[in-house]
């Protein structure tokens, strides 16, 4: 176990040092990526310049949904988001080298491509969540306090599962990396708004099939004490961890199948 930890730490350290070499680029990158994720929140505010309500939700209520989704996504993006570079490893044949090492492929990818700038986003999204909660001042109970911590973590696990499962597409179709973006970045966009705005079948796939309704929407309803306009039972708000567990299981299964299926591109 010991040498494994040392190896991962060495990978992580090398990556951090490499990326901070070009200092101007690094800081521009760090600042700009924080601003980019803030834009999701700005977008909600801009949309509300054109309308007083979105599917019956006020701007503050929508901000809580968006902020919860943002924290979950930024946590997942910081931990496993770099998995989408895997298709370059497959295309160039560098994955062969990874398979030869006595370390797991997934952790090698995660630690070996770690982007420290993404931590700025996590911090920024947490600040936004606190600010929006201060704005709506929900009636705090022990349950809601637990929920506000557990929901983003469960949401991050759901997002991470989608990241990992999506990246495996590259095992079958080398050049189709963008396909996964529909569900990872698409999922992020989906969680920013009340699920009631989406057309039925589309909502079915994203909200329940992929579990994105449990990232921000249902927890936000419980925090705000609002009923679901679609008529779902209030207990669903507490089900995020129950959705996260099978999501991880499915992602792990898809990942294993993908790695077993891997045939080198031979280049």
């Amino acid at each position, binding site marked *: 176990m010991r040498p494994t930890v040392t190896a991962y730490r060495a990978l992580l350290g090398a990556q951090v040092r490499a990326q901070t*070499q*070009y200092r*101007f*680029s*690094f*800081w*521009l*990158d760090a600042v*700009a*990526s924080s*601003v*980019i994720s803030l*834009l999701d929140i*700005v*977008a909600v505010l*801009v*949309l509300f*310049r*054109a*309308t*007083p*309500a*979105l*599917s019956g939700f006020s701007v503050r209520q929508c901000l809580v949904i968006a902020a919860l989704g943002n924290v979950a996504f930024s946590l997942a993006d910081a931990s496993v988001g770099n998995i989408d570079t895997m298709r370059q490893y497959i295309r160039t044949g560098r994955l062969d080298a990874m398979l030869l090492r006595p370390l797991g492929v997934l952790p090698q990818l995660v630690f070996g491509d770690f982007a420290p700038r993404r931590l700025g986003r996590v911090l920024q999204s947490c600040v936004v969540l606190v600010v929006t909660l201060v704005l709506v001042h929900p009636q705090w109970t022990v349950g809601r306090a637990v929920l506000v911590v557990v929901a983003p973590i469960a949401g991050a696990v759901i997002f991470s599962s989608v990241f990992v499962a999506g990246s495996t597409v590259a095992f079958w*179709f*080398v*050049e*189709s*990396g*963008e*396909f996964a*973006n*529909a*569900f990872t970045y*698409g999922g992020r*966009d*989906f969680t920013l*708004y009340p699920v009631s*705005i*989406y*057309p039925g079948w*589309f909502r079915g796939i994203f909200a329940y099939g992929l579990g994105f309704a449990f990232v921000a929407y249902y927890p936000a309803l419980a925090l705000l004490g609002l009923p679901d306009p679609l008529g779902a039972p209030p207990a669903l708000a507490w089900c995020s961890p129950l959705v996260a567990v099978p999501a991880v299981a499915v992602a792990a299964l898809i990942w294993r199948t993908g790695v077993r299926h891997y045939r080198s591109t031979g280049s």
Partner: protein
Amino acid sequence: MGMDLAWPRAGTLRTGIALAGAGFRRWSTYRQATIAGAFTNTIFGFLRCSVLLAVAAGAGGVAAGYRGSQLVTYVWVGQGLLAVVQLWGWTELADRVRTGDVQSDLLRPVHPVLSYLTADLGRAGFALCTRFAAPLVVGLLVFHLYLPHRLATYPLFGLSMLAATVVSFGVRYLVNLTAYWLLDIRGVIVAWLLCANVLTGLYFPLAFLPDWLQPVLWYGTPFPSILQAPIDVLVERGTVGHQLVILAVQLGWAAAVLALAVLAQRRAERRLVVQGG
């Protein structure tokens, strides 16, 4: 490097067509990426369309002067256009600067700005047939799209799309040129992404922004000329005169960014150090 902007004497047009054709053919070989990209654009079409229709419904049918059907066109045409103008992910030139491969570009008898531009137009042509068409067809089948009422809008939209591609190319070229100074341009790319996502009109129609900010963006930056301009021409915001003004702004920016690219290219070549390898 004493290159001038002129094509080689023999076969002026032929060189351009050959380069554009090569760009078209090159991108047509990335079949999986094309399908995956069109699929992703279509999913985002559903996402954005749902949000903006909810905005229009909340605003009582008309949001910032756009009717629901115009917003639907804005979304689906926008999802296709972003591939035509290639809003994201072009770092080819920067990679060539970093690896030193760029030296072979500089040895060619055609000015690099012109050769990259013609190749990019070929790429845009391929994207028009595939990445633009796919989400548009889905949008037409599933939603009620606003279609132009005036016949003149179609050629105007074509011109506007061409100008948008040139402006986008010019900005991307300038972004890539910073590699001569920085080598690692990740940060500049993210900064460009920031502008590309918000100031071009991709995240939301720019008309949703405060009134004082809109002219600043349209006249002071090239970004609205890349997406919002062709879309506004297509959904016939205002009169024919308004469409012509939009087109004029785009052409102005196209000329400006190309001139800047040529200028920056000249400065950059003095910085070129081919890294040993």
